[in-house]
């Protein structure tokens, strides 16, 4: 960020940071508004006053709001932020706005791991999360190896990832169809990615993991942005390339896989959020904080749309994010063609 400010002097530098600050505050406000709307929304629409009273610890609908709706909203905010961060990490790593984990099949891979643990193993929350992360890392390694050919290319990695994604999605459907009926019904519910039925008891582990990885990422953010500027820049500023890359891949996959283990593959948040955030703060790289905030807003907002659009039918939130993200990807491509 300071690299942008330097040529135009100190004043410009401060102004850019103020823009980031204002944009971030606005995003926090939007995310909070989306979250509050989510709290008002259930079988019917509750009055905001009742919801506010419930949050303060009383009122007529206290139980419904704090036991049923709040975990869903908290999960939406945290998972959206996690997906936004994961997208920012991979877009920085591949130096390509399309190199996000959902496009290249990491969600599908993590979901394969989740399904395997659910259908074969014992299916404890820790086991599912571990299987999800392990399969996500294996998928990342596979895609990387397959896309290596006379050097590394971001766009080739993306299309190789699409091929891997196709296979894994097919395998996932097969596992779901093969499984026992009750497991299969649960798995189908989130094969499109869904926050339906999320309760406090589902959130403890994923929130801890996401929080820990976010802190780790904040510590590594400076060298990550150096890396995004190019190997040479990073090397001259003393960044240990191989170690940093490995750390970033592990953190990015960890974030994606943790969300997938709980909510299924929610695609396209990781693709869209970093790019929208980047434009809002007019950054040259792909900054982390705006990506996380936009991700939280997008997922919570999409979940409100998913609940309200065809009420009383509650859509899986993944259906909404897929349509919105696909439209955004089309726009991104159309714009790049014009240039």
């Amino acid at each position, binding site marked *: 960020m300071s690299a942008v400010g330097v040529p135009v002097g100190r004043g410009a530098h401060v102004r850019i940071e103020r823009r980031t600050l204002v944009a971030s505050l606005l995003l926090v406000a939007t995310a909070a508004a989306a979250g509050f709307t989510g709290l008002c929304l259930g079988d019917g629409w509750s009055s905001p006053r009742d919801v506010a009273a419930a949050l303060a610890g009383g009122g007529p609908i206290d139980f419904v709001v704090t036991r049923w709706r709040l975990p869903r909203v908290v999960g939406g905010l945290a998972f959206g932020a996690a997906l936004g961060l994961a997208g920012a990490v991979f877009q920085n790593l591949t130096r390509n706005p399309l190199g996000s984990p959902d496009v290249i099949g990491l969600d599908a891979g993590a979901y394969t791991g989740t399904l395997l643990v659910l259908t074969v193993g014992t299916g404890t929350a820790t086991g599912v999360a571990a299987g999800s992360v392990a399969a996500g890392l294996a998928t990342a390694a596979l895609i990387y190896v397959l896309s290596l050919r006379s050097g590394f290319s971001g766009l080739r990695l993306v299309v*190789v990832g699409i091929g891997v994604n196709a296979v894994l999605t097919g395998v996932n459907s097969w596992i779901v169809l093969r499984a026992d009926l009750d497991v299969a019904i649960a798995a189908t519910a989130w094969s499109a990615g869904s926050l339906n039925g999320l309760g406090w008891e589902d959130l403890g582990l994923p929130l801890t993991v996401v929080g820990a990885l976010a802190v780790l990422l904040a510590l590594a953010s400076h060298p990550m942005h150096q890396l995004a500027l190019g190997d040479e820049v990073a090397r001259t500023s003393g960044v240990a390339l191989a170690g940093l890359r490995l750390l970033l891949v592990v953190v990015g996959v960890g974030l994606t896989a943790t969300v997938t283990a709980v909510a299924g593959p929610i695609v396209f948040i990781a693709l869209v959020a970093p790019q929208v955030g980047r434009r809002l703060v007019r950054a040259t790289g792909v900054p982390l904080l705006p990506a996380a905030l936009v991700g939280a807003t997008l997922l919570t907002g999409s979940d409100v749309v998913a609940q309200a659009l065809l009420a009383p039918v509650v859509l899986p939130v993944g259906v909404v994010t*897929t349509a919105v993200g696909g439209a955004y990807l089309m726009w991104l491509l159309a714009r790049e*063609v014009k240039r």
Partner: protein
Amino acid sequence: MSTTPTPSATPGVVTDPVKRRPAPALPAAALVLGLVVLGLLVLLSLAVGQRDVAPGEVVRAFTDPGAGNPDHVAVRTVRLPRTALALLVGAALAVGGALVQTMTRNPLAEPGILGVTAGAALAVVVTTILLPDGSQAGRMLAACAGAAAATVVVHAVGRAEPLRMVLAGVALTAVLSGVSLAIRLADAEAFDSHRFWSVGSLAGREQLPLLLPALVVGAGLVAALLLSRPLDAIALGEDVAHGLGVPVLRVRVLTVVTMTVLAGVATAVAGPIAFVGLIVPHVARRVAGGSVPWLVTLSIVLGGALLVGSDVLARVLLPTGDVPVAIVTAVLGGPVLVWVVRRRLAGA
């Protein structure tokens, strides 16, 4: 014949090192082999399913049918129409892929990947909502219109760059299938009978009237064969084609129309199925070399064989019931996509 790429060739696409015109004996032998394999797969498709029927009994079901014999009834009323549908859909999708790959010089182009089948599927879903009692012809027409609209959009966004086209197709598929899924979830009753269709499957489509799809696909395949010679000339370069008296623009437009109709009808019959149009032309091209007529001919036979074979797999992969055949083709096709990106797109 030269192997140097024409000036209009897409940058980054390495032309096949195979000679442009192989001795016709090679593709002819491959055609005979393909027909034999196809025949065996058809026999397998008639014999395998919930009730396994011995090959001899399959033959007897046609030569000496017993009205009360459950094996003969299953073979004649369920498996035969389903196998015929698989043949039609496979040939249509494979030739659609061969046409669009030849015309755009994009080795990754394919109706499924480009979002054309997703456009057709959404159009069918919308038509079913608006006109629940609509005719089969109406649904097929809607599918073709949806396929055409998707084709226009994906070409406008993706232009001629192979990898960009794939991304545009993936994005378009995401939007269209998201909308389609939302509509189907909202009106679950109207789509109960379409549940298998919507994920790309031939299960439950056995009683579909076969005549109309067969006629349209047949016409499309004939059109593709007629267009293959002028396309051959265009592949040598537009100037050469003009010199040979080929109406380049008209051939292009007719090719796109043919591809759209084939993909649209296939989707109306079997739902959105991807990757058949990618796998088959790449296999066929290894034998056909640069000859478009051979490419189209082999794609008809191999496309039918691939989908009949995939449909047999779809029936045996689960202890009970069917896997959607689109899942089988996706699992087979993903590696082919990776292989094509690694082998044929240098420096992209």
